[in-house]
């Protein structure tokens, strides 16, 4: 109980500090903070799949990009208002995940890694080659920031206002995912990650659990993708690329897979790293590669876990 209270106080403090920061920072820095929150939602969504259920996906950009594209197409080509275009993107990603996992769940770990990669790459190639719909390599520019209608007192056109919009979505998403992973359903997912055979023997319908987890994960990835698209008022095939998939995987590996807060920290570290490094060098891919090699060799449970265990809790065993 005590620990639970501490967690809620910590989460509240985190939100207040981040919210206050948005008030003081320059528009550029607020933009960075917004990115951190968006990637935070994205990383948490992948963590449901990778960290909690043990399904290593290397194609999570598929849902991120699909949500962004569908929402952009609905508002640009069909003229739908935000209140319809945004849900449309999420539904599209959920449906795509539902269809894809009818097939993908027939495969196990290594195959799943490859098949998710192939799936995202297929969507990428469609986005590049279906120029009439997607604008091809040029992407779709000019999507207006969310507008909730005349009854709502604020618009989100300015960077600061949009930041608070993203912060609100972030809080709602984090709460929803927290409830999800702390529910009996979430514990069953952890059971599947640890020992699928045993869960099956206990009478759990493992397939259905994985199926639902993948759809939930895809939906929140689409939420993140849409927020990212509205941040830049732009979507291009690069949002579906393997680089994006690899980056979000890196965020949860830097944080700690199987916790919700770890990936958010990972997303923050990632955005700062990208910002700092881009001012000194354009060898960004090289750095990502080195981080991957380092994590694989020294800290497969997560770089932050590694640092904590190494420097802050020398007597304790590994986190569990």
């Amino acid at each position: 109980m005590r620990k639970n209270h501490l967690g809620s106080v910590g989460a509240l403090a985190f939100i207040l500090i981040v919210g206050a920061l948005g008030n003081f920072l320059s528009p550029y820095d607020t933009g960075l903070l917004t990115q951190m929150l968006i990637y935070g939602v994205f990383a948490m969504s992948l963590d449901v799949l990778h960290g909690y259920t043990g399904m290593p996906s290397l194609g999570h950009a598929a849902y991120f990009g699909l949500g962004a594209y569908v929402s952009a197409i609905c508002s640009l080509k069909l003229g739908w208002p935000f209140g319809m275009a945004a849900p449309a993107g999420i539904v599209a990603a959920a449906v795509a995940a539902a269809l894809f996992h009818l097939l993908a769940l027939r495969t196990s770990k290594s195959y799943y890694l490859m098949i998710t990669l192939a799936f995202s790459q297929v969507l990428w190639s469609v986005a590049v080659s279906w120029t009439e719909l997607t604008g091809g390599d040029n992407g779709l520019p000019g999507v207006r920031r969310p507008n909730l209608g005349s009854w709502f007192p604020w618009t989100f056109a300015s960077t600061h206002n949009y930041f608070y919009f993203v912060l609100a979505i972030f809080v709602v998403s984090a709460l929803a995912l927290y409830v999800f992973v702390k529910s009996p359903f979430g514990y069953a997912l952890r059971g599947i990650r640890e020992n699928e055979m045993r869960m099956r023997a206990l009478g759990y319908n493992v397939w259905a659990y994985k199926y639902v987890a993948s759809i939930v994960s895809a939906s929140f990835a689409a939420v993140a993708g849409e927020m990212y698209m509205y941040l830049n008022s732009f979507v291009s095939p690069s949002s579906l690329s393997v680089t994006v998939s690899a980056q979000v995987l890196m965020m949860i590996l830097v944080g700690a897979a199987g916790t919700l807060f770890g990936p958010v920290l990972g997303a923050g570290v990632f955005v700062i790293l990208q910002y700092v490094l881009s001012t000194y060098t354009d060898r960004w891919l090289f750095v990502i590669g080195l981080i991957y090699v380092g994590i694989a060799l020294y800290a497969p449970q997560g770089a932050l876990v590694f640092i904590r265990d190494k420097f802050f809790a020398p007597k304790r065993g590994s986190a569990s």
Partner: protein
Amino acid sequence: MSFWIVNTLNGLSLAMILFLLAAGLTLIFGLMHIINMAHGSFYLLGGYIAITAIRMSGNFVVGAIIAVIAIAILGTLVQRLLLAKLYKQEMPQALLTLGLLFIIADIAFFTWGGDPQLVPQPALFQGAVRIFGVVYPLYRLFLIGWGLAVAFLLWMFLERTKIGAVVRAGMDDEEMVRGLGINMPLVFTGIFALGSALAGLGGVLGGPLLGMFPGADFEVVLLAFVVVTVGGLGSIRGAFLGSLLVGLVDNFGNVWFPQLSLFTIFVPMVVVLALKPTGLLGRT
């Protein structure tokens, strides 16, 4: 009729490039359970090194040999210095090779630039010949011949030699083979070097057709993944069958539905996985 002949031959020549990649990928996975994301990087580096070496030596064969040997050495180093430390840890190994994919892609971009470059064709196989009533580029026929020859040699190596028998036994029960006193770490290194060299050879031979450019590494490794998923991980015959299927489907798909390019590749994969999740000839 000539449409069918030309496109079938085109599909077959692509299939042979894919086989060179998929054979290494499937051997490495079958024996060591490593999903080698960096396999396409070996292909890319093989092609780039061949371009430079051929330019400097003025001879295709010399350049090709230099490139393949360089990639074999690189593969040996990667396996010995990095992957051997993560013995039997499937996810960390995949992540490590993903990191290598990025690192090598960046180094290649830095060294050879962003413009697409073709590996020069060997002088002996330039021009075209008349075959089955159509005029067809000689180099592509040469490529098909090479692919078949490599497939045959690999099959002979695995099925008819003692080392091949060790490799096959290692795929089934590695600990038992170790127990028999066979130096498995050495076999691992050898097979990883062989697989890398085959990917490098794929880059050298495929380079005159497909060219080398940033992103080519990922493009081919993805096709090779589809091949081994269709054919079944760990099976050379499966890799061969999968290469033929994917090469032909990709080629005809590109001709008939150019808008859907990669999507057409996905179709055979969906069908095979729906019917047999371990691939056509996969080990279970």
